[in-house]
């Protein structure tokens, strides 16, 4: 059963990379953006099926970090700099949410 799951995952990954880098005919930046979007899909999978609450918090935190990279690549394509503002605010909100959730998990209140 574990071997079957491993092989299914390997097939999905290989298909994604084959279609992204050899079939899809676009710029290099779009291919990199596709890789980051595929990574955020995997993170959402961890958010859905994570066994404990801490897994979900870690996954959402890393989703915020990936969003900074995605918005930086989008700004690089459109040659506009306001995408970085959105990324900074996203990272700030993700950081505050992470700290608050870890404090609640530890059994303390927010004004402790």
């Amino acid at each position: 059963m574990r071997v079957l799951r491993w092989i299914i995952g390997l097939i999905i990954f290989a298909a994604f990379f084959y279609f992204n880098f050899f079939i899809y005919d676009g710029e290099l930046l779009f291919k990199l953006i596709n890789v980051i979007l595929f990574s955020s899909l995997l993170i959402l999978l961890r958010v859905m099926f994570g066994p404990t609450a801490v897994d979900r918090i870690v996954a959402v935190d890393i989703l915020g970090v990936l969003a900074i990279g995605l918005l930086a690549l989008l700004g690089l394509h459109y040659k506009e700099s306001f995408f970085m503002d959105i990324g900074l605010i996203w990272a700030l909100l993700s950081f505050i949410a992470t700290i608050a959730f870890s404090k609640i998990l530890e059994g303390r209140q927010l004004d402790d």
Partner: protein
Amino acid sequence: MTEVIGIILICMGVAFDFLGVLGLVRLPDVYNRLQAATKCVTFGSAGILLGIIVMYGFTNFGFKALLGIIFIFLTSPTAAHAISRAAHRSRIPLAKISVVDKYEEDKELKDETLKEEVKV
């Protein structure tokens, strides 16, 4: 020349992001997942922003990317430390193949010393 160096840095950053997320999906434990996932901060997104700095120089886009790097490097280890401490305090078990747990021993020892002080 700077564009080529920037594109190479950006490709490296995207590769590190993907590998970090792969570790987040594959590894068996909360602490291992955290250890793999914080790698995609230091080389992943910070690599992308460093490539943008190399490509754009000291324009407004470059300065915003520099601000992003400083902000990520300040906040991400703090968040990882808080998460791991909260996970260990809320009794989330380690994976079965893990060998040693030093923080648990430290906590037990600290509790014993506290009890002795109370007795005295």
